[in-house]
């Protein structure tokens, strides 16, 4: 892989990551959110694969395929099934309207770029320039968590945060060991399953899955 091709690939992947994250804030359809999540997973796998090929790590390429399998296929598929079964295809009444959401996302991206300046300065390679993208993903994922009420949207927000963390880890540390990556993936899968079970139970108890209902648990 040539130097320029590597730079192009990294730029494309990070751009896709950022775009999908920001679109999450904009779109209210849960089906669309799931598709965006799949694209984001694929972009992350592309990023990992590119780094692996450029640095000649076979292990990283393997991880890229694992990431692709889990984040671009398995988890979005599981989410799609949940949406299918619950029949909730739209996130209703978000806490902020799409325009303010997009503005907030822009502000958060600015903050991410401002914060990661010292990190970028450490390395001149194209990979380092993508670090702010990872941080943006974390912050935007948090924003999704904050503004959505449906359990499914919460899972999506959580997965965006996780993608952000993975991006930063791959870009700054030149990849994480296979064992650690597998462990993190397992955690994520567990969380998704727990949330799926939780939302199923909530639906049984209340007829729908709105986190506002959890307020009744307050003493």
């Amino acid at each position, binding site marked *: 892989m040539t130097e320029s091709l590597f730079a192009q690939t990294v730029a494309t992947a990070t751009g896709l990551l950022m775009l999908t994250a920001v679109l999450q804030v904009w779109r209210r359809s849960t089906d669309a959110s799931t598709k965006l999540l799949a694209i984001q997973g694929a972009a992350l796998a592309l990023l990992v694969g590119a780094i692996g090929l450029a640095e000649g790590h076979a292990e990283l390429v393997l991880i890229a395929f694992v990431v692709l399998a889990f984040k671009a296929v398995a988890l979005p598929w599981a989410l799609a099934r949940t949406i299918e079964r619950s029949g909730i295809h739209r996130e209703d009444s978000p806490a902020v309207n799409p325009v303010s959401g997009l503005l907030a996302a822009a502000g958060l991206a600015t903050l991410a770029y401002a914060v990661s300046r010292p990190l970028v300065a450490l390395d001149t390679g194209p990979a380092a320039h993508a670090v702010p993208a990872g941080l943006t993903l974390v912050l935007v994922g948090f924003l999704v968590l904050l503004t959505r009420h449906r359990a499914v949207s919460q899972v999506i927000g959580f997965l965006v945060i996780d993608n952000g963390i993975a991006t930063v880890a791959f870009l700054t540390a030149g990849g994480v060991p296979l064992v650690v990556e597998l462990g993190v993936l397992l955690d994520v899968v567990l969380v998704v399953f727990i949330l799926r079970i939780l939302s199923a139970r909530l639906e049984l108890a209340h007829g729908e899955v709105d986190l506002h209902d959890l307020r*009744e*648990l307050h003493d």
Partner: protein
Amino acid sequence: MTLTDLGLLGQPLLAVLAFAAAVAVTDQRRSAVAGTLNAALGLAIALTGIGALLGQPGTLTLGSPIPGIGLLSLAPDRLGGIFLIVVGLVGALSAWFGVGYAHGASATRAAWAAYPIFVWGMAIVPGAGDAVTFLLGWELMALGSTVLLLSEHASRPQVRSAVLWYAAMTHLSFVLLLAGFAVLVGHAGGASWAAIAAQPPTGASASLAFALLAGGFATKAGLVPVHVWLPRAHPEAPSHVSAPMSAAMVKLGVYGLLLLCTRLLPEGPHWWGIGLLLLGGASAVYGILQASVTSDLKRLLAYSTTENLGLMVTGLAVAMLLRTAGQRAVADVALVAVILLVVSHAAFKTVLFLGAGSILHATGERDLDRLGGLARLMPRTATATSIAALAAAALPISSGFVAEWVLLQSLVHGDTRGPGADRVIAIALPITVSLVALTAGLALLTFVKVVGIAFLARARSESAGAAHESPATMTVPLLVGAGLVVALGLVPGWVASGAAYAVGASGVEQVGLGGVALPAVTALLDPVALVLMAVALAVPVAVVTARAARRAPRRTVDLPWGCGGVRVDPMMQYTATSYAEPLVRVFDDALQPTRDLDVTHTTESRYLVRAVAFRQRMVDQVERGLYQPVLGVLEAVGDVGRRAQNGSIQRYLGFSFTALVVVLLVVTW
């Protein structure tokens, strides 16, 4: 392998066994099996203590997953040995009593599983060789006792409030200790006692460490003004738990103070001793004053604990003052008095609390005003409790007498005028003597009340009249404990020598048949000889009286006419409240009781009284003056804080998100 090593190894094994038995054994046999194993644990602790007191070295260390930080490092010294013996014997007697006593909620799996944690935690504290182990034991002890205290929460709502008070105060104590040890360890660069003693801090940081640690230990010891948990927790715990709490656990506060003042920071300015003297004196007088006017038996015993702990701290403070003034010999006597008070109080308070448990078991009552006449129905409980009450009132041939005698010897023989005296001692010693004397007088009244009202006269309620003696598993430990009280009183020489050995004091000798001599203050006490002398005096008097009585025939006098009423009714007897009435009047300003008098008249005429109801309530004035305002402020803050929480996940997420963004902004700036 020394006895100490063996004991240290046996303790955790027995604790684990007792824990496992509590969890595994069925309900019917749990108390028997777990109680026996806990008693064995107590004996193992006592054996360890004997080994340590004899000077046999012994260590037990456990590593932790974190390299460089040990989890447990036990190396009891002689002072720790005395306290291990106390903890072990109290634990053994109480667990043995628990075999017959624990039932229902206090014999559940959780309660018996917490018991070994509590007892072993109490053994770790005096055995600890460094500050980390000490704090670990301190917390284990707090954890175990809290679970045990909670055991009867379902049937009595006041248990919950007692647990809240106890948990809050015990954590206060822990936080103070943590901060105090942090100062010491930070200065010494090592957590072991030897390292701290080798490089003690000086000046302001030494005073800070002393104030923090003394505050923490005083809270555990139940001294005024941090005694508030004690009169709540002790009555609400099951009796086989209140006994070790009162007789052993609070004693570890005194152990901490002794460790601090004799080993870690032996050289301190004058005000340390004065501060401790104020704490101790106030606790002694306030504790016994509250005890003397209380009619709840277990609450009375709890306040009496505050009094006794106050006396111990008074002794320690006097020793510190005398040592600073260069009167080492008398200071040593005061230190020996502290240990004797510890041992004596442990023995008699165990019997008193277990006796209260036996009464509670038989009658379901712990209000003295509803007891009476139990001496006939429960002879063994009555005997044991009366002997312990003798000691609590510091009367001869009991352990309490010896201990207070030694304390008074050190107080009256301290040089207040000679070259070794300074102004503080000249003022402090005479005042302390009078305080101790006042305390002894009030203690006498208090325990005359306990024995007289509970055991003598006639039953004041149906449940007291229907009482029955408790089973042997309960009365035998009681009698064994009472035997210890008498033994300590009759042959105190052994214990006094051991105490002198433990605190490194000279000038205590054994004389005669186990008597104790204090050459430093030219005093001597030989109880066995005194008893023999008393018998020699009493026998002729008894013979003469018997002969005289034989000459005069016995006459019985019957009341010719009772004005239509019954001559004596149980209602006409003195009650605990009426017995204490003169005291309440004398100390009216200090106690500030609230009294209600309701007089109901007959409907026919308002000059005829149908019924009179009298109610008197004592509120702890320290609690009302000091704690209520603080609690009020805390509650107001809590209410404001509650508004920030509405149970919405989004809001909680928002808190973390805001925190993250703010931190990032600050970092970027």
